[in-house]
């Protein structure tokens, strides 16, 4: 689950990680009032969307007069913001964060992630702040410093020193002390809130020598939400695709893509591989949909409904390897969707595994128009033929 910048900063502020003074606004008149409370000029007006690349997409404005704060807010609110992560249609900006501007002396990058290969959390620190870390990693990997954390002992002060004394030119004692406490606090936030990512980029030292988190990115492990209930209110459904939101409600794992062949599959790996097969056959997948192992008839019907809500879909491929999910249950769900009058597109079905004969029988006895493929290779050919 992704948090907005202002939500993450709220957590930082309460956890001993210094942040600029700021206020969240959802209307232009609030923006004008905010300039009376927050010291400036300058002010920074920041669109609050989950997508990255806001700066380059025009979602972050530095302004010098109160009326400019209002204009910038008006410019952003309620309008789509296009960044390299959003796709051409962009995402609607519903909230704007107004902050005091600071005079930056130096910029750093600080984050915590789970390192998969070592199975440990890692803290990453770099003097190349304010840039994309992937770019730093590929061009100047020596500027990225990393400390792995043994969960049995936690974050140790010497690890902070390893990171901080690893940068050039060295810092004076004041910022060193603040950075050490920020790192310890960052580790505490990461572990107590079950984060999968916390990133501060840039972490700035101001001209007055203060260390301050100018940006904040935070994701929480969705598997840990059962014990992080107080974070649930940070979830912002407006940031999600409406079809994905609908799928979530029915415990279906659906991700919308750009193609024209809808796919319904059981199992995440097989669903990905089925998307790839569609592409190999010369078509483009319209979605990822894993109905899971324990899908019921009504979930299958819902799945078909969600696929069809995407108007770009020209054909549907159902690929089921029956195990716990039986082929007859799948077939009943598809037939029920057809009876509701939902399916008017070519349907290619490939069934295998548990109760496959019953499943085929149910499809055959319906008045549904469909193509049965004996294996995946044939299914792909049929799909390609239908959309070409």
């Amino acid at each position, binding site marked *: 689950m992704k948090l907005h910048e202002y939500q993450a900063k709220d957590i930082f502020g309460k956890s001993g990680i210094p942040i600029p003074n700021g206020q969240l606004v959802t209307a232009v008149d609030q923006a004008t009032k905010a300039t009376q409370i927050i010291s400036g000029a300058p002010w920074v007006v920041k669109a609050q969307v989950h997508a990255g690349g806001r700066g380059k997409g025009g979602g972050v404005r530095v302004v010098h007069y109160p009326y400019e704060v209002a204009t910038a807010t008006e410019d952003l609110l309620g309008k789509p913001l296009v960044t390299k992560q959003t796709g051409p249609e962009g995402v609607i900006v519903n909230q704007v964060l107004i902050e005091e501007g600071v005079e930056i002396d130096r910029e750093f990058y600080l984050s915590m992630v789970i390192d998969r290969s070592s199975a440990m959390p890692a803290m990453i620190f770099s003097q190349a702040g304010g840039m994309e870390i992937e770019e730093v990693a590929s061009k100047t990997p020596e500027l990225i410093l990393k400390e792995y954390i043994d969960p049995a002992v936690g974050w140790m002060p010497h690890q902070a020193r390893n990171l901080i004394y690893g940068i050039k030119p060295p810092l004076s004692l004041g910022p060193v002390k603040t950075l050490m406490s920020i790192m310890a606090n960052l580790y505490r936030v990461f572990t107590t809130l079950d984060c999968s990512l916390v990133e501060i980029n840039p972490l700035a030292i101001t001209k007055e020598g203060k260390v301050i988190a100018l940006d904040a990115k935070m994701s929480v492990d969705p598997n840990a939400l059962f014990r992080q209930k107080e974070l649930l209110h940070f979830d912002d459904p407006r940031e999600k695709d409406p079809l994905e939101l609908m799928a979530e409600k029915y415990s279906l794992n659906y991700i919308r893509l750009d193609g024209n062949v809808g796919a319904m599959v059981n199992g995440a790996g097989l669903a*990905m591989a089925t998307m790839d097969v569609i592409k190999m056959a010369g078509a483009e997948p319209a979605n990822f949909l894993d109905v899971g192992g324990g899908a019921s008839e009504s979930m299958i019907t819902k799945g078909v409904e969600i696929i069809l809500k995407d108007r770009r879909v020209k054909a549907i491929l159902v690929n089921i390897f029956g195990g716990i999910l039986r082929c007859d249950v799948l077939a009943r769900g598809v037939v029920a969707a057809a009876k509701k009058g939902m399916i008017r597109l070519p349907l290619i079905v490939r069934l295998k*595994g548990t109760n496959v004969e019953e499943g085929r029988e149910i499809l055959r006895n319906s008045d549904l128009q469909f193509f049965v493929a004996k294996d995946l290779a044939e299914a792909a050919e049929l799909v390609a033929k239908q959309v070409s």
Partner: protein
Amino acid sequence: MSILVDENSRVVVQGITGREGTFHTKLMIEYGTVVAAGVTPGKGGKKVEDVPVFNTLKDAVDKEGVNVSCIFVPPPFAADAIIEAASAGLKVIVCITEGIPTLDMVKVASFLKDKDSVLIGPNCPGIISPGKTKVGIMPGPIHMQGGMAVISRSGTLTYEVVDQLTGVGLGQSTCIGIGGDPIIGTTFIDHLKWFKEDPETKGVVLIGEIGGTAEEEAAAYIRKEFNKPVIAFIAGQTAPPGRRMGHAGAIISGGQGRAEDKINALEAGGITVCMNLGNLGQTALEVMGKS
């Protein structure tokens, strides 16, 4: 021969009284697996499918001499179940549970570092040595005893591959689902090392997917140390970056984990990569025919 589990495995099912636990206990017994005990705290003394249930794993070890565990415990309690099994000295622990918090797995991985227990999963279908035993949830009848090993990060995708292998007459020595989570007990390399020493295993099918760098690491190992033919498949060539494709670990992030990079690394290691899942059985037959 097979690796890790065989007809001598005495299995304990942790979480045996739950819906999934009971259902799969029945299927495992039908396949021929020796399910010697079950554990559910508070349900000790009961029986499920004629299998005695204990309150603690320690009791199950003492009374029934179990040596392999299969875990169906719900996510909030699964890390404890794994550590309980390792503490009781079980040699092989298979964790089926999906949805364990990653930081719980960080602790588990750290605890297991100096233990002899082998953890398979979590978030996996389990392990099967066809004709001998199955510890997990895979459909038994699609398997056939033979010389192919299968190592996979996925569930149904593995069944698809096994079905194709059986279809072209290539039986399997042992098939393992290593799990779809970011942190798993054993990786491709761990299992490759065991398959290298297994005389029954003539070749390996490695099924990877987007996310992480486990396939790249496996490719480097195979190039240097592995002496049997390997056929690989990578799912997710069409997956968009930044999105979690069902499995918690299947995500392209920070420029890492792309299918393309994995395929390149595998091919550079001299491994045959099957690009189209529909042809996997045929590809394996060609590669094994040549060797």
